[in-house]
């Protein structure tokens, strides 16, 4: 794989990497026919982000040398970020950026051609990996809103920088509200200030959502995409559904595409709990059809709905591809927690059932499909790769 980026696009790539660095610690780089994809997922699997740069984004884009298999790799986010650490410097001095990956090299080579003939070469070591793909379908989300990124960025300004979670909802009068989310504390003496921004419908290019709907997600992870969208001056589309199902943020342009999928908090009121326990799960909507068969197994599980299933492509993708034998140890505990309706939020994959969840977001993406017990006859169970397990 070899690609060449010139001019202002180098900074755009740098900004994208900065946004991704807010989410996860590892960057999955995969050259596809459609373009170069950069993806990441957070450690608790409750946030997924991906950027797809179309071939037009590059001055030169060569997916693979003839006769070579498609390569993909996984790099430490820190390493890749260090190349684009100072965006101001990148903008001022870098004229061209060349990224190449070949099976003969042991490194992913990122070469920056700078002013005055200076050439900086970064050799980043990588790991082979499975393709990181979260399965989600924005068109299946019933609600959406679309606004210039600036509108949302301004709204978010009034929140303290340390705020973790924020609730997005539609209020009476068709106003979109963003409210700081505070966890309910038993000890009510130390309450935190609640801030709410209300934006009129007129500021949105599209608003298809009923009044009263509200979803809560992690603001810190969202800020990454927001700053990118704002600097690129692109509109941001938010696809969402009921609380508990992930919210999907998308940016679309002729040169690039970006999707950020964040888990949302499940409501803790009694009604939703009753809804979920006895009824079967709604089928998880997916892009790849072949994993549907094993989904039926989940409808029998007494757990809450997952919208996204994590998939890795198993098989012959490259001589260096490792078999996906490792399973993130998520499956069993999450099922155990089902009867305890309060334990709707489970984040950290933990092998110890009953361990109090460190974070409130559950592994929406990757928990459900990890039921190796129920592997269907068809394709082998698709599993999220546990990078830690490889060590």
């Amino acid at each position, binding site marked *: 794989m070899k690609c060449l980026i010139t001019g202002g696009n180098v900074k755009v790539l740098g900004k994208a990497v900065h946004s991704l660095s807010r989410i996860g610690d590892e960057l999955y780089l995969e050259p596809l026919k459609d373009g170069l994809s950069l993806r990441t997922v957070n450690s608790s699997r409750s946030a997924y982000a991906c950027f797809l740069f179309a071939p037009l984004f590059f001055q030169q884009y060569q997916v693979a040398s003839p006769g070579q298999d498609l390569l993909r790799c996984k790099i430490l986010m820190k390493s890749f970020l260090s190349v684009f650490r100072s965006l101001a410097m990148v903008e001022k001095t870098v004229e061209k950026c060349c990224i190449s990956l070949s099976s003969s090299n042991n490194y992913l080579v990122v070469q920056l051609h700078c002013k005055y003939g200076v050439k900086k070469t970064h050799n980043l070591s990588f790991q082979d990996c499975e393709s990181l793909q979260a399965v989600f379908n924005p068109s299946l989300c019933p609600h959406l809103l679309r606004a210039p990124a600036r509108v949302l960025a301004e709204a978010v300004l009034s929140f303290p920088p340390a705020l973790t979670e924020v609730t997005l909802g539609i209020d009476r009068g068709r106003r979109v509200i963003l409210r700081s989310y505070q966890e309910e504390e038993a000890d009510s003496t130390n309450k935190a200030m609640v801030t709410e*921004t209300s*934006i009129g419908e007129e500021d949105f290019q599209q608003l298809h959502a009923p009044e009263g709907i509200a979803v809560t997600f992690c603001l810190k992870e969202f800020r990454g995409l927001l700053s990118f969208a704002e600097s690129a001056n692109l509109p941001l589309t938010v696809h969402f559904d009921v609380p508990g199902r992930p919210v999907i943020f998308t940016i679309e342009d002729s040169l690039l595409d970006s999707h950020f999928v964040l888990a949302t908090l499940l409501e803790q009121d009694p009604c939703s709990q009753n809804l979920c326990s006895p009824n079967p799960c709604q089928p998880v909507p997916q892009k790849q059809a072949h994993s549907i068969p094993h989904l039926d197994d989940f409808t029998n599980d007494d757990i809450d709905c997952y919208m996204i299933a994590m998939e890795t492509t198993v098989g012959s993708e490259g001589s260096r591809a490792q078999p996906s034998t490792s399973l993130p140890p998520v499956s069993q505990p999450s099922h155990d927690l089902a009867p305890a309706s309060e334990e709707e939020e489970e984040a950290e994959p933990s092998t110890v059932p009953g361990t109090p969840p460190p974070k409130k977001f559950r592994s929406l993406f990757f928990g459900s499909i990890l039921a190796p017990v129920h592997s269907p006859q068809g394709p082998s169970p698709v599993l999220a790769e546990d990078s830690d397990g490889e060590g």
Partner: protein
Amino acid sequence: MKFRAKIVDLACLNHFTRVSNMIAKLAKTCTLRISPEKLNFILSDKLASGGVSMWCELEQENIFSEFQMEGVSVENNAIYLELTSENLSRALKTAQNARALKIKLTNKHFPCLTVSVELQLSSSSSSRIVTHDIPIKVIPRRLWKDLQEPSVPDSDVSIYLPALKTMKSVVEKMKNISNQLVIEANLNGELNLKIETELVCVTTHFKDLGNPILPSESVSQSRHPEDMAEVHIDIKKLLQFLAGQQVTPTKAVCNIVSNRIVHFDLLLEDISLQYFIPALS
């Protein structure tokens, strides 16, 4: 108990924001007293603050275009609330270019002071509304007696302060050497800040400061103008006071009661601030 007020003038809003920022630096938690004519920010919890007390007063009609309040009862027409000062200053920070700001006492799950800001952004056609719910604690009437205006003691020396920024940079450096500082002044317009350790003594002298003319016959009449009145205080408390002063005050006076207390009396346009630092025992 009811309270609602509105600010529409940008200058008044900025003034109020500056006061709130200052209070946030001076006291983590403070009492807000609302009465028909005035608003007071009070710090009087001697134990928690280590003896420091603060009394800040502003006339409500200088800030608010609308002001309505109903106290606890007709005879006790005041409201005493305890809040985290930083919350108020953070809420006001978002009102930089607001068209209007409303404050009212509400009870949304818990009693709070709701600050509602109406912003008119050039980028959007409609107005943006930002609401902050600041959690508060209503202080019961039986505790009001502890939160009254402190009586100004008869001072031995009264002197105008030098530039507070200069004082702050001096005290900041001194803080690294000693925990205690001696503040002394005389009726000849001289003020000294002294620190003493085993190894070193550092003194900063301020001259020609001027002394306010005291209206009444006081102890200072019989005082030799060169005699210094001094107080040993905790340097950190002085530094905290100085760090809170972001604006040059209209008037700044320091009153010293020898070995008892130092009293700073500042006037920031129309808002008065009194800050008391007791002597170290």
